[in-house]
């Protein structure tokens, strides 16, 4: 701190501190604390606020734990988000390795440019694209019929949601893994091969351990984006597939019960915190490695 004052003077240092404090306190910490506090209060009409009914309780959380449907939707969200995370990892690892170590340095940027075109088109349009493709009378089924197969009802169960989530968030897995593998010295891979290690062994013992921070970062981002996704489930869901964020929206917009909504949002936040710490523990990485 004294270092800052020495370099930039006290008034500039004050401005720096004020900006940072505004960000961390007013935009991040206190809002989350308010969310936490709200979730323990009952939902009351304005004239009863501060009245005898206005006290802290766990009631909003009991609403969740007493609703088998909400619990089921919560665990389905966890299950399918984990599945999508795993699938994204499996799908992007070979490509990340290819782009980082196999393809020549001139073509890799061109492939990247093509890959990130969907990123510039917003998430909502990305899932809308799949809404068109997967429609029962849509182009994918027309193609299947063209080669003599039966049309498939894609938008049923969680099928379409899974496809949409993978498509929307795949690049959030690919980019960090690519960055991690790029920083690996190619000599290490060659040494492993020269010493007779098989392809699998080279990856398992050399490349994957080195790319752990990237894998952790990708997994955390993709899981969080999936579990918190609003747009993909509401575009591509079938009646039998519901997502936890839809329940939150119901409380906030239809029930207009912001307190229960806050409790549910807090559960979602807790889920993400648990997932982050689990990944950090499992892969033995620090937060600094994840947020590169």
């Amino acid at each position, binding site marked *: *701190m004294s270092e*800052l004052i020495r*370099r*930039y003077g006290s*008034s*500039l240092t004050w401005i*720096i*501190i004020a*900006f*940072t404090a505004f*960000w*961390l306190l007013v*935009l*991040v*910490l*206190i*809002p*989350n604390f*308010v*969310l936490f506090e709200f979730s323990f209060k009952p939902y009351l009409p304005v004239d009863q606020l501060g009245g005898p009914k206005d006290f802290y309780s766990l009631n909003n959380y009991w609403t969740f734990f007493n609703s088998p449907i909400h619990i089921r939707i919560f665990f389905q969200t966890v299950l399918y988000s984990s599945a999508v995370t795993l699938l994204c990892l499996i799908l992007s690892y*070979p490509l990340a390795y290819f782009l980082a170590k*196999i*393809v020549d340095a001139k073509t890799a940027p*061109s*492939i990247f*440019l*093509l*890959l990130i*075109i*969907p990123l*510039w*088109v*917003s998430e*909502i*349009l*990305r899932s*809308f*694209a799949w*809404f*068109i*493709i997967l429609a029962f*009378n849509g182009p994918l089924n*027309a193609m299947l019929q063209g080669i003599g197969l039966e049309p498939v009802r894609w938008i049923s169960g969680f099928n379409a949601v899974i496809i949409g989530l993978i*498509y929307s968030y795949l690049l959030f897995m690919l980019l960090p893994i690519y960055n991690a593998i790029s920083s690996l010295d190619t000599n290490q891979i060659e040494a492993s091969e020269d010493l007779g290690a098989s392809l699998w062994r080279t990856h398992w013992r050399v490349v994957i351990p080195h790319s752990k921070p990237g894998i952790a970062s990708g997994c955390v*981002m993709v899981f969080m*984006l999936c579990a918190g996704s*609003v*747009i993909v489930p509401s*575009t591509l869901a079938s009646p039998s597939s519901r997502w936890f*964020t839809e329940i*939150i929206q119901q409380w*906030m917009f239809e029930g207009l019960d*912001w307190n229960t909504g806050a409790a549910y*949002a807090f559960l979602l*936040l807790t889920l*993400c915190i648990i997932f*982050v710490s689990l990944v950090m523990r499992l892969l033995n990485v620090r*937060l600094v490695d*994840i*947020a590169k």
Partner: protein
Amino acid sequence: MNSHRFGYYAIRFYVILFLAFMLLPLIVMGGAAFNDTRFPSIYPWFGFTTHWFQELWADNRMWGAARNTVFVAIAVVALSVPIGTAGAILLNSLQARSRSIIYGIMVAPILTPGAVIGISTLLFWYKFNVPAGLHLSVLGQVSYIAAYVMLLVLARLQSFDAGLEEAALDLGASHAQVMRRILLPHLYPAIFAGALIGFFQSAENFNVTLFTRGNSDTLTVYVGSKIRSGITPTINALAFLLIAATVIGVIIYEFRRRRADAMAKLAED
């Protein structure tokens, strides 16, 4: 050796499949903008039309939403860039323990679902009787977009030579001059990248905006409500325009990159 060759072709085939998976949906979506049918699709084909572009052009709600998107994005950039830069400079001057705590708080919003950010922002300002609206969307978005700016600036600070500041101070520069002439010019590439990323992150944000917007529209919210309430290919027309803009940007970028490469090569020879 045979298996090696097989691997060579297998991985290339995989890359092509991967690219097709990422790009074909955009082609389908863009193509459907020209199909003369009310339900957006490219199959069956009912004939070429530009009707949906005209309908999009005449849609006042879309124009309002587009304007809002730009205003929000500009406000987000105007706030995130100074906040994120200040955060990075402050963080860089801290010692190990407090540094990692503050760092954790700073990156937490990136790892927080947008719905949670949106709801907590809404409730916080509700306590002060500030009604929902796009101003809250801006504040909610800044909370995590500032973190992106902070990470970019922090990375750039690693290559900064603090000795330059010492020299300037010794030579009698004022504190403001050290900041404006020495530190900030070094950070400009990161600040510029942060502003660009912040603008597009804001423009494509849906989750935070949904919970904080009140009755106002942004482009993403407008598209979302259209998808729920009855889709017409006007959305595809919009998508086509966005994709076209992106592709043109990509082509220009690639062209300049190749020319720069060629120039560098020429200079070497």
